[in-house]
């Protein structure tokens, strides 16, 4: 069954009770990302503490994949150093954009490996990456890194969480 390959139980669990859902204060940076092809949106806040990701909170208006992905992201990066979390991000992105050819490393990606099935559906890859691009963008805004922001995902970013359309 193809459907179960994409919607693995882990994904459905995260979708039904997403971690990090609901915007929280205080935060160091906020990113608003939008998927122009379907209109899905995420507002994601990051709070850092001494070079570590202390808290992620987000509000996601989107499909099960984008909501579950933001939830998994929260689990994976909170507590990590910014550097480390960006390594996870790169691994997640490589898997998601790998068209099912990239063997995910469970050590690095944890529950994130459940999204390997999504990589077979090119139209849904952006859904899986929406939250991650918001995270990357938010971290850049705090000045935690000088890497490029969310453009690779083809999404629009705003500095203040206002509607980017």
């Amino acid at each position, binding site marked *: 069954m193809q*459907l179960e390959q*994409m919607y693995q139980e882990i994904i*459905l669990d995260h979708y*039904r009770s997403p971690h990090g859902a609901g915007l929280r204060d205080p935060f160091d940076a906020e990113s608003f990302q939008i998927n122009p092809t*379907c*209109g899905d*949106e995420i507002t994601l806040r990051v709070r850092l503490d001494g070079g570590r990701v202390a808290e992620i909170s987000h509000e996601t208006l989107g*499909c099960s994949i984008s909501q579950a992905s933001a939830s998994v992201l929260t689990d994976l990066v909170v507590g990590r150093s910014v550097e480390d979390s960006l390594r996870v991000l790169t691994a997640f992105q490589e898997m998601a954009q790998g068209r099912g050819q990239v063997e995910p490393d469970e050590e690095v990606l944890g529950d994130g490996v459940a999204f390997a099935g999504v990589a077979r559906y090119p139209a*849904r890859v952006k859904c899986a990456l929406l939250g991650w691009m918001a995270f990357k963008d938010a971290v850049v805004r705090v000045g935690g890194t000088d890497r490029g922001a969310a453009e690779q995902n083809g999404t629009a970013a705003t500095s203040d969480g206002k509607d980017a359309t």
Partner: protein
Amino acid sequence: MTAVEAPASRNGTAALDVAAVRADFAILSRTVRDGKPLVYLDSGATSQRPRQVLDAERAFLEQHNAAVHRGAHQLAEEATDAYESARARIATFVGADPASLVFTKNATEGINLVAYAMSNAATAGPEAARFTLGPGDEVVVTELEHHANLVPWQELCRRTGATLRWFSVGADGRLDLDSDPITERTKVVAFAHQSNVLGTVLPVAELVRRARAVGALTVLDACQSVPNRPVSFTALDVDFAAFSGHKMLGPSGVGVLYGRSDLLAAMPPFLTGGSMIEMVRMEGSTYAPPPQRFEAGVPMTSQAVGLGAAVDYLSGIGMDVVEAHEAALTGRALDALGEVPGVRVVGPTDLADRGGVVAFVVDGVHAHDVGQVLDDRGVAVRVGHHCAWPLHRRFGVAATVRASVHVYNTPAEIDALVDGVRAAQKFFGVG
């Protein structure tokens, strides 16, 4: 010219022989996603093409291909004849004079052509004065427009300093005629004949009357009407209209802009270059009469020929027959979806002034997820905002599922859609 076989059903009241129609569309018998029969309910995005259209393109390319309106050799003559014959047949199909039809890449280009010609009018001399726009002038659109009939007008306003205004849409999915922003300042009124999301057919005659009363030009986005019902631009009395070949069983890469002859004659060009000139000197050039003035460069040719074959095919069936068939399918979809708890149709739920696109949301299941379940069952629909983002905002939804039908769809396919929606509810635990 390019001979086209008689399609499956003749004009008239006889019921459509859908099986015979389907036999003309090879793609409809393929399977998808591990052997599931394809249920194609996305013709509102792009339709499939019958063998007759593909054959016409191939026959043209194998027998007559040459650059049209250039050269005097035999192939050039034949190619030009095929191209102009297609224009003439398409013109008949939409109730217009051939010289009032400009071939474009698609409807998007047709609408942009008008919008850019209006910008260019500022420096094009007195003849073009009626197309000029500036601060204090207004362009009126509606809240239900496809981005193709919204963004070009936003851009025209930005370039010229004019102001964009719009009709709003009621909760029933109908245009709110009381929200009318048309005033003496209005110079253009641009609107869809039928919404590509709601299915609503707009009251063209009334909008034309109101625009005319203040001397504004009308631009009709006919993308979702010309493919699906009899349309005569002359009878509708609009000034401009645009549609795309790929939504009417024809090729992609070809569309049509219709313009009233006197307007096209006075309108400055958008794209300039070869084929659109009258005389060229180093110091400057003069331009050919329409439609050539608006067809710069070597045009799409086999595609135009293919579109000619598509209108022959549709005419052979009869657009009244197509319309009735689509209405029956739409009614079936509205009834069946209406019986599924948690499904809400966005748009009119009765068939009056309504075409064959049905958009809906499923409580508790995002449109993408519904679409994924449908896709897994072989049912192809569109999910998202369908290039009508403001309209989706108006209804407070980020995305909808949209099923759209054409002449080759069957009642069983509507049932497959509805079964799939129920399956999605079950899969996500909301049904």
